């Protein structure tokens, strides 16, 4: 077990290791929870273009699910790229409260190494985190079973369906026991039923393990259903966070039940309205 895990997260992990299904999770967004990542006054641009985002600050605390929504081209994904280190900021800074190795990134597409079997794709991350090949393979197999991929270990990515590939990508990231999960519209390409099932599985896991999540999506319902805080970005370029909505729905949540919560519909309406205003203003100013 990972000895670096501290505080309330360790409780959640140990509970799982014992096989007992105790839903222990740190107080999401509570004042005592430490931030796993803080972004200060971030600006990013590609090449010599106008900055896509400017003056963006946000924080994700231990065990908190935070989402970024906004019009397309508002630079939502760019923020994730800055945090993960794939792209250097133009100005501002990103402070990680955890080692970079405890951060996982789930991408929009399901690009896996085509020349590696599903299991070896999952094992790759474990090997890069210092596990010997044999142990990494075995652990990868266990993760695949946990995600409903038993029997598909030796398939190559092109022999898997879109939903299965997504689950492999998920196993690849979750196997590294991330304390912060960055997700860039991870399930956008899946059909509605598969998407619902994969999302629910992930939500259960995140809640059980107390993983902090920063989710980029343009599905406002999904954002609200999963998050503790929804951030709305304005229309880019030079997009910033214009609104911040706390979501007061208790956990554990289930994706269907959450929609019946009395605060769900009113908040959804508010976000929609604010989003429309942002887009209209941007169009008027152009």
């Amino acid at each position, binding site marked *: 077990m990972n000895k670096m895990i501290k505080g309330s997260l360790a409780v959640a992990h140990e509970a799982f290791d014992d096989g007992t299904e105790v839903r222990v999770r740190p107080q999401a967004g509570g004042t005592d929870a430490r931030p796993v990542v803080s972004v200060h006054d971030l600006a990013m641009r590609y090449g010599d273009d106008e900055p896509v985002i400017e003056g963006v600050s946000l924080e994700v605390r231990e065990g908190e699910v935070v989402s970024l929504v906004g019009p397309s081209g508002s630079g939502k994904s760019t923020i994730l790229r800055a945090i993960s280190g794939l792209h250097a900021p133009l100005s501002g800074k990103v402070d990680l409260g955890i080692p970079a190795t405890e951060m996982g990134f789930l991408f929009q597409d399901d690009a896996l190494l085509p020349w590696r079997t599903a299991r070896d794709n999952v094992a790759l991350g474990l090997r890069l985190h210092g596990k010997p090949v044999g142990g990494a393979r075995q652990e990868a197999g266990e993760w695949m079973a946990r995600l409903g991929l038993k029997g598909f270990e030796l398939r190559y990515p092109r022999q898997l369906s879109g939903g299965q590939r997504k689950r492999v990508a998920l196993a690849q990231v979750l196997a*590294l026991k991330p304390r912060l999960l960055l997700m860039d519209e991870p399930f956008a390409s899946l059909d509605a039923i598969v998407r619902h099932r994969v999302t629910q599985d992930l939500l259960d896991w995140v809640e059980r393990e107390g993983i902090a999540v920063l989710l980029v999506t343009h599905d406002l319902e999904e954002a609200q259903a999963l998050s503790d805080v929804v951030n709305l970005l304005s229309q880019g370029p030079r997009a910033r966070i214009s609104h911040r909505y706390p979501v007061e729905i208790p956990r554990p949540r289930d994706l269907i039940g959450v929609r019946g919560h009395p605060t769900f519909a009113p908040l959804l309406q508010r976000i929609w309205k604010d989003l429309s205003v942002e887009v209209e203003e941007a169009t008027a100013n152009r």
Partner: protein
Amino acid sequence: MSALFDKTWARQALALAALLILWEGLGRAGLIDPFYAPPPSAIALALYELFADGSIWPHLTATLSAALAGLGFGLLLGAVLGFGAAMVRPVADIIEPVMILLNAIPRVILAPLFIIWFGIGLGSKVAVSLVLVAVLIFFAVYSGIREVDVRLVERVRTLGGGRMTLLREVYIPSVTAWILGNLKVAVGFAFTGAVVGEFVASSRGLGYLLSFAQSTYNAALTIALIVIIMGFVLILFGLAGRIERRLLHWRYA
């Protein structure tokens, strides 16, 4: 019979047989001059004589060794230069224009120069063959690396992979796919280089025999030699295909 006829190879074999019979028939009927187009039976006889008295073997060995050595070293050189150019910008600045020039010219024009440099022995044949193959493989590797799937690179980086991991897990496998895709063309190039080199100046080899047959207006021997070269290239194509399927099993699985 009709089931057999459904197979592509059966139809192709049938068409070939029909052509050979027609050719033979026209020759015997005196409608084609055997001096220019000797009938298949005469070609078969020439082929038989080449193997029966064993006179073909030193020539076959010479051409095969030149082609295989050119193929091997050409693959190696092309891959090393391609990797170097793709990884180190200044290397690319120097090598790329040279390769573009070499790619644009018919590279066999270098054969006379190589014969002056390396003599009429095996060396000059290997050199021609090598240049033909190396330029092809250089571009396969160079573009293979530059067009590598960025998503895979980012994926491995976010999983904690560094430069060496990227090389091992992403670059080498994707470049291998590019090289293998060009392997059959490379085999053809290797033989072209060897035979053309022998054609220009040599004391043995299939190219040398061809040049001899041509100078004595022996059409049957000329065609027999062409058949032999075709046969060998087909065998190597088959081998290349097997290697490709083996190394790229993830693509065919």
